[in-house]
């Protein structure tokens, strides 16, 4: 498997792509990941047009209809003010996906340039950047995020800021280790000897060659960020009800257990499927993009 994948690196672009697609579709879990991610993205894009009860998005009040069990009218039942849970979960996909992608992209935008800078510059500058990074990595993410939210105040925007601040150091580590190993490659030496400028070496040689592990990490991190935002929502530090955020929905639904159990089931299942999708997709992408680091 990995021998085949390594051949892919040497083949011309079109055959390389075909081989990659073939490798990807051969793995059931990769395809499952892609399907789940595609489904979540579709729900997020089409959400407002496909939900069965558009009036329930903002959280209308329809007490006559409250806490209905799942039925043909309401597939996942209704919540404590009579809103259709399916509708709110679909709109929740929008929030979670946006927040997950936002956190990951912002963290990568902060972390990757710093990491490449540290790896190429070396010396004192590298020491400063890496020690600062280690500092943020010295506390597990969730606790640091809670500390930051406690200081900034609860809310979904502050939860996002806190998670970005927690997430960027991972990208510094990744980019630095890539830059360090690429720096020693003969083609960098060749470019330098040929008189290429530093910025050109960075842009044309270092960045493209660190792209594969970066894409893999970002795919995994979108899933983890969705989970982290939902976690903060659940403990009451993230999105506030009646925002249809999955974690916040579960935190309300918890008060209606055990009689009205279906209320908590749907949002949790969506978190699970979304995170699972991005994890499997990341795993599958790693098998074709970065086969040598296939671990864990």
């Amino acid at each position, binding site marked *: 498997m990995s021998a085949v994948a390594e051949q892919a690196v040497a083949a011309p672009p079109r055959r390389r792509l075909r081989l990659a697609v073939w490798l990807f579709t051969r793995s059931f*879990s990769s395809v499952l990941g892609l399907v789940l991610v595609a489904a979540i993205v579709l729900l997020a894009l089409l959400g407002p047009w496909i939900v069965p009860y558009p009036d329930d998005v903002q959280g209308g009040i329809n007490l006559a209809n409250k806490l209905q069990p799942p039925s043909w009218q309401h597939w996942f039942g209704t919540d404590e003010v009579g809103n259709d849970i399916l509708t709110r979960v679909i709109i929740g996909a929008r929030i979670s996906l946006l927040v997950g992608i936002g956190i990951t992209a912002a963290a990568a935008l902060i972390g990757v340039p710093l990491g490449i800078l540290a790896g190429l510059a070396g010396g004192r500058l590298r020491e400063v950047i890496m020690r600062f990074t280690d500092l943020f990595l010295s506390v597990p993410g969730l606790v640091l995020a809670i*500390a930051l939210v406690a200081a900034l105040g*609860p809310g979904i925007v502050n939860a996002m800021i806190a998670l970005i601040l927690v997430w960027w150091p991972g990208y510094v580590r990744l980019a630095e280790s890539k830059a360090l190993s690429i720096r020693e490659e003969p083609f960098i030496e060749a470019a330098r000897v040929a008189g290429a400028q530093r910025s050109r070496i960075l842009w044309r040689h270092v960045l493209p060659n660190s792209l594969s592990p970066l894409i893999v990490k970002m795919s995994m991190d979108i899933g983890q960020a969705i989970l982290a935002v939902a976690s903060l929502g*659940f403990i009451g530090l993230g999105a506030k009800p009646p925002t249809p955020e999955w974690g916040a929905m579960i935190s309300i639904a*918890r008060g209606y257990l*055990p009689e009205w159990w279906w209320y908590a089931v749907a949002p949790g299942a969506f978190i699970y499927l979304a995170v699972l999708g991005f994890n499997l997709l990341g795993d599958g992408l790693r098998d074709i993009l970065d086969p040598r680091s296939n671990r864990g």
Partner: protein
Amino acid sequence: MAGYLLRRILLAGLMLFGLVCLTFVIANVAPSDPAALAAGPDAGRSQIEQARRDYGLDKPLPEQFLRYVTDLLHGNFGRSVATGRSVGTDLARYFPATLELVIVAMTLGVLLGVPLGVLSALRKDGPIDHATRIFAVSGIALPPFWFGLLLQLGFATWLGLLPTSGRLSVFTEPPDPITGLLLVDSALRGNWALLGEAASYIVLPAIVLSLPCLASILRVNRAEMVEALRMDYVVAARAHGVTPWRIVMVHALKNAMLPTLAIIGLRWGWMMSSTVLVETVFDWPGIGLYAVSSAIAGDFKPVMGVTLIVGLNFMIANLIVDLLYGVLDPRLRRA
């Protein structure tokens, strides 16, 4: 070895100081006014100023920082502005509950994760391997708070086998702490009924907390075992007629355990952090629940205290792993 040890300890000390600085910065960028919170919602301006002086919040920042550091060196984490209680005392009261939960969950993770990892490596690409792969990927993706609610629903409400939440029944008088770990204390006192009760309460939260850890131990151990079983020394051992059991357990597993150990160290810290969610679901009276209730009230001192304790745990766990690496891997000892 001594130099290696000393360098690691020195580095950990430096990181700890960095962490102290970080918590101080976080507490001071806060837009809300801790003095106003301490004085209460109906306080007038003079009472707020009084509270500001009482908590030393009127001093310049460098002086406040110096005091923060010297207080921490004396084990003083400050006072909660919401309750007025000492954060250090609160932490000492809540930490054993968290520690007990993390120890049980970690034991579960290692006892199940390592054998399952070995098994899936031996049956690579077989049905067991696929099953554990699906299990591991699910374990990392399942939201722990949701999984906890489902277990409560299934095992506590519907089957009635286990209690829903808490550390002991509300009717049970908690014993005077010896270690603070209920399972240990009740065993030491020979109070088997209490031991049984405490054990029944810890089962569900420990399962939820251990699942991601179990999953990642399993995956790492499997990958390392697959690698190790391909090595020349395994072929050599097989050619020499060493029994398969001995090849797996001694030759391969010993080598695969090093990276597994690193994951265990990392996961120890992560568990201390994800216990926040588990404790919230199960009303487990540990530092996680304490941090959440304080964070919601906008009371930073307890949150910063918990952050420091979790960070300290994380560093100590990594330090121990580094030292064990030195013991287990002779190449590092000479370096």
